[in-house]
């Protein structure tokens, strides 16, 4: 629960927001579909009802969470988890910071920035050990590196989502002088019809959809270029963690088990994802699940699924500070908690 004074402030902020007009971006809107299997919604059977707010529509990026829901792993931990789909512009961290939901998916940079603005957020579980953030181009364009997208003149237009830290990173490194940089609206239409265009993507998601539509693409990772944040992490608030430590640990345990199950065999979960309004086709999701495995499993430094290292958080904080995304380097040790695998 938030304090009365904060609640009053929320009301004032809401009123002011109404006066200011809608600030949300176009594109996919948040959906309320829950992913809790039939019969387990709410607090059935004495389970504690909690919500996980996603920052995008259901797809293999969230496969482990849906696997945990589909295989009743959350229920076994005493939790009735409702998974809510998100979309472009959904600010999940604000929902956690205001107490609207206990768990959400956010990006590590968002967490560091929000913590500097008094949002008491804590990261609990990193889905990807390597950031799958990438830019894709038509193979026929002849582009062979991330830098060439911006400097070679072969690409005329690049679609990226404004406000994401990697945009600043590539702008600072390569400049936007030779390309027209447009808003990424979340669909492929523009890209598929323009061979001189590059588009933001997850290395294993949109390229598969483009291939299904007959366009061969080349994909260039921003992690390879030196910007490798934890791109999808489970967050909660410091208060929720302090008050419901057992539930948080149970949630992370079940999530880790869900990801193990999804890595072993993604197909049953992908069939289930399709019933949850996933936009990708089942074959594309199966292929994406295979392709994302190395991003999830990580390397020898990854102690267990979901692990986060202080070194990686510190590197990100330094990079964001250097890019002018944050005005000071925060104490990153308070930004995350590893709930160890038993």
């Amino acid at each position, binding site marked *: 629960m938030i304090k009365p004074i904060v609640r009053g402030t929320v009301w004032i902020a809401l009123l*002011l927001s109404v006066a200011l007009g809608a600030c949300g971006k176009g594109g996919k809107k948040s959906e309320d579909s829950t992913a809790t299997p039939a019969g387990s919604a709410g607090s059935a059977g004495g389970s504690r009802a909690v919500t996980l707010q996603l920052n995008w529509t259901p797809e293999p990026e969230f496969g482990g969470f849906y696997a945990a829901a589909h295989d009743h792993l959350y229920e076994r931990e005493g939790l009735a988890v409702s998974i809510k789909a998100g979309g472009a512009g959904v600010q999940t961290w*604000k929902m956690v910071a205001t107490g609207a939901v206990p768990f959400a998916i956010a990006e590590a940079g968002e967490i560091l920035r929000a913590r500097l603005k008094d*949002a008491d957020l804590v990261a609990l579980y990193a889905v990807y050990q390597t950031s799958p953030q990438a830019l894709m181009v038509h193979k026929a364009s002849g582009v062979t590196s991330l830098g060439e997208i911006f400097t070679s003149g072969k690409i005329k237009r690049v679609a990226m989502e404004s406000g994401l830290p990697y945009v600043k990173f590539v702008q600072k490194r390569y400049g936007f002088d030779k390309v027209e940089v447009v808003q990424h609206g979340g669909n492929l239409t523009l890209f598929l019809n323009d061979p001189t265009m590059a588009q933001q993507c997850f290395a294993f998601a949109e390229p598969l959809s483009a291939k299904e539509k007959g366009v061969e693409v080349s994909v260039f990772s921003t992690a390879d270029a030196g910007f490798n944040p934890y791109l999808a992490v489970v967050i909660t608030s410091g208060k929720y963690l302090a008050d419901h430590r057992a539930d948080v640990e149970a949630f992370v345990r079940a999530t880790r088990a869900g990801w193990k199950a999804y890595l072993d065999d993604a197909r049953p979960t992908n069939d289930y994802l399709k019933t949850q309004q996933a936009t990708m086709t089942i074959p594309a999701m199966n292929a994406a699940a295979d392709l994302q495995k190395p991003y999830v499993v990580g390397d020898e430094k990854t102690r267990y699924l979901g692990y986060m290292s202080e070194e990686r958080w510190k590197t990100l904080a330094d990079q964001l500070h250097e890019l002018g995304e944050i005005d000071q380097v925060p104490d990153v040790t308070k930004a995350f908690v590893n709930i160890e695998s038993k």
Partner: protein
Amino acid sequence: MTARRVRDFAARLVPPLCAAVALLGMWELWVRWTNPPRFLLCAPSEIVRDAMARAGELGAATWNTAVAVAWGFALSAVVGIAVGVLLSSSRLLERALYPFTVILQTVPLVAIAPMLVIWLRAGVQAVSVCAFIVSLFPVITNTLSGVRSIPQPQVELFWLYGARPWAVLTKLKLPGAVPSIMAGLRIAAGLAVIGAVVGEFVAGELGAERGLGIVVVVAARQGELPMLFAAVALASVLGIAMVGAVNMAAYFLMYRWHVSERPD
């Protein structure tokens, strides 16, 4: 006479200024008193401080949006008045085409904007068209209504003196419709700003042509409330400036003969 005008102007300006100062003062005090989390609310003084610190960025964004607004509004004024006059020339034409102009008002801009990016260059070009689409309808309807409202005996008098249709239009109908057209342009001026800013959310450019809409999106995403408020305030100033310009044009066009522009 001049002193009286200054007094009138001051009498009109002081009440809203006092209200604004009082509201901003209460807002500032509330924030200082309650000290809310910075991602939820910021004080007006923080908005001013951040806006000053990033004045160059905000100035460039305001200019880009203003250019798109000006193009969109100018286009909607020219096309809107022309279409309004055209529709007024024949009841059949009006019945056939008017419903399609209503579509302009009902189709959500965010649904059209991605198509504009396919057909046009993103940035000022696509955003100008967004501003045009949103602001066109009131100009058409008000022009149509104004031209249609000319009393029939006046038209017949023109005919009696052997006036040709072009003379009836330019000497009677259009001048007579000016008050109504100006009312339409007043509405369109505000809508053009809304159309441009919302258009930038989807069809904006992130580089040199970034406008206030992109600043709003980035600030909202990053929880930069002072920048968000500053960008919204500048969009509002842009809207006020547009409406002010139309009001000024209306005054010069009508102060000699129309009751709405005469001094009290």
